């Protein structure tokens, strides 16, 4: 049965002009080269976001976002709700994998120079999606209201509070009070399930729209290649089928992690106890946390923590603005320098993260 033979298709086509969509999909193509595999990373991150939304909605059926019942509701989900443990573990593991793939996707875009003209806005929206993903991770970590989450949030928001000028109001905005309290939990719950998903979907839609309008970026070296030497894969159905295959494999990995390495619930948060030893943030914040530990208390009359935050703020801003500094490939040496800086950043993040988990 072809599409022209289908009465259903005809009926829909009359109403929704499907021919235009099919023509668009048929013409859409993905460059084929030695780094083509990185084109899949964004799709995997998006797939994991969908897993997040689905598992999150299921958790919402039983989760209660208040300090007196949050911990108990998660315990109930894990012990009494049929497959509740699986949903929670899938939600937690897919969250971590999603952030991992967002990072991989970003570095892939960076090293393939896909942020250059005309894709600056795609890069900027991607950076926003990265920050929103980290926001998801940070706000979601507190929701079980256990001891580790409580104190990690306390440390994390303390760092936010140290930001010059906007730190104090930002801290109060996040916590809803001077300290991490029941109000903070309610606030984080609202941010996690309403504000962030809304913003994320909006920016993700823009991000995808940009990609669709501009197509996949081609390697810079293709600029001088004749068309006959370029190779492409049709997006539909070839690339999409491979996308689905990879998503199935990723889902299998999530299932294996969820069953063989489930997330502990620990003890209920008690604001009156002292922080347990060895409080550490989630792995994606570890490199910053570890860096702050190495900065002296005072550096030339500036508080070490504030200096560290300013350095990361400045570094993040420069990273986000890379399409402005590296507009095209006309300056080869500058382009190589930017790539070298990116490589150093990656090595730094990996090294500091490992140090964060291995140092005493």
């Amino acid at each position, binding site marked *: 049965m072809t599409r022209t033979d289908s009465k259903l298709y005809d009926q829909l086509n009359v109403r929704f002009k499907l021919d235009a969509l099919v023509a668009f999909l048929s013409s859409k193509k993905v460059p084929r080269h030695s780094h083509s595999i990185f084109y899949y990373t964004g799709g995997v991150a998006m797939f994991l976001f969908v897993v997040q939304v689905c598992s999150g909605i299921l958790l919402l059926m039983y989760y209660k976002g208040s300090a007196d019942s949050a911990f108990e509701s998660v*315990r109930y989900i*894990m*012990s009494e709700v049929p497959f509740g*443990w*699986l949903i929670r573990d899938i939600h937690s593991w897919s969250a971590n994998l999603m952030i991992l793939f967002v990072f991989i996707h970003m570095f892939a875009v960076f090293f393939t120079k896909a942020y250059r003209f005309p894709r600056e806005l795609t890069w900027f929206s991607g950076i926003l999606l990265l920050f929103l993903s980290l926001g998801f991770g940070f706000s979601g970590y507190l929701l079980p209201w256990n001891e580790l989450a409580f104190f990690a949030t306390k440390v994390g928001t303390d760092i936010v509070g140290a930001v010059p000028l906007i730190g104090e109001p930002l801290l109060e905005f996040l916590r809803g009070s001077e300290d991490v309290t029941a109000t903070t939990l309610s606030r984080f719950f609202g941010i996690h399930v309403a504000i962030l998903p809304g913003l994320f979907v909006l920016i993700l839609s823009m991000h995808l729209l940009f990609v669709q309008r501009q197509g996949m970026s081609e390697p810079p070296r293709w600029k001088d290649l004749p068309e006959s030497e370029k190779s492409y*894969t*049709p997006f539909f*159905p*070839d*690339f999409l*089928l*491979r996308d*689905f*295959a*990879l998503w*199935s*494999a990723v*889902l*299998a990995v999530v*299932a*294996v992690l969820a*069953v*063989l*390495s*489930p997330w502990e*619930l620990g003890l209920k948060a008690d604001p009156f106890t002292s922080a347990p030893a060895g409080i550490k943030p989630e792995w994606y914040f570890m490199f910053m946390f570890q860096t702050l530990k190495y900065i002296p208390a005072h550096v030339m009359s500036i508080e070490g923590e504030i200096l560290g935050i300013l350095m990361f703020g400045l570094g993040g801003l420069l990273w986000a603005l890379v399409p402005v500094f590296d507009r095209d490939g006309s300056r080869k040496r500058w382009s190589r320098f930017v790539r070298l800086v990116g490589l150093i950043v990656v090595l730094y993040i990996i090294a500091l993260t490992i140090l964060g988990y291995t140092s005493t």
Partner: protein
Amino acid sequence: MKILFPIILYLVVSLLLLAPCALCQDEVSGCVNCHSELDDGDIEAPTELFKNDIHNQAALGCVGCHGGDPTSDDEDLAMSEATGFIGVPDPTDIPKICSKCHSDPVFMKSFDPGLAIDQYAKYMTSIHGIRNSAGDTKVAQCASCHRAHDIRKANDPKSSTYAFNLPGTCAACHANNVYMAGYDIATDQHTDYERSVHGIALLEKRDIGAPACNDCHGNHGAVPPEVGSIDKVCGLCHANNMTNFDQSTHNEYFDALEMPACETCHSNHYVDSPSTDILDGETSVCAQCHNSDESPEGLEAADGMRKSIDSLNTSLTVVKEKLDESDRKGLFVTNALFTWQEARQKEFAAKTAVHTFDLGKVTGVTAEGLELASQADVAADDLLAGYVFRRAGLAVSVFFLGLLALLLWLKARQIDARQQSL
């Protein structure tokens, strides 16, 4: 003239600034100034130690205990009899010297309204106090336990009377064979205490709630508890054991035989971790009085109690192993663990019920414990069965997801190959 004005101004300001400092020179400084510069360690050492002394922090100087005139620059005059100087106090005088302030409610109120003022009165009822007042200079007086120049509050971890340090403070004398030679008293209390359940809790596990020497013997009024009061002393913490014992038939017999209540079975300084070995078998304390010829029912009851408690303990061990295994496998054991802990609590209650010496009461409690252990066992079995189900489910899911991925990939390759051939 122009140059004179700033000089005069400087001198005036300096004098104004220095004057209050001269006035605030307290009496300690006079003593400390000289003693801290002497090479003689015995004379110099107190000046260093006194820096952390609670009395120094309250601005109470040397003169309060030693007398003398710290304001005098003349060494002979400062430490003359005329100024009340007594030098190093005689050990028999120390309690009286300390009590001058510490038994004065008005004086003490201005420093520490919450501090007791009955230390001297209690001390005089203690063996230490009685011997000290009789002229024995070796027995403990205030400075023996609290030190002389580094006296800290008892809740200061560096204090010699802080809970963790107190057994060592008492042992300084009581574990010294030579020092205690003339007193006809054992010197193994500290060794026994260290390996007792109380000593291990306090000294190894750093459980500050565990009893040190003073919790049973009293501190300032330290005496060995009388035979009739031992159960009251132990009962301060072990209230249910005391109540059960007091209401049991053993209470009367122990009184009649003048046997100390708890100590007869549990010893005094070496109180071992409670085990059912104490009831039956080679280490049975019941068999010390009961024998199979004259009072077999006592031994039978002890045997029954042991079997009953052991059976609960065995069940709890088996269930705990299953729960630990479940926990290692990442299963959510909290709910089953709550039930197990309730059952474990029943084991403690059964051991407490042993002090009624009523087999029926002990087996009643263990039966409740066994029922709870059984519930925890079922829950643990469910968890482990669930784990098998999870693994099987995972295997099936991974197989189908892998198969789906493979088929999709093959299909993509097939389409790709077809397009390449066109």
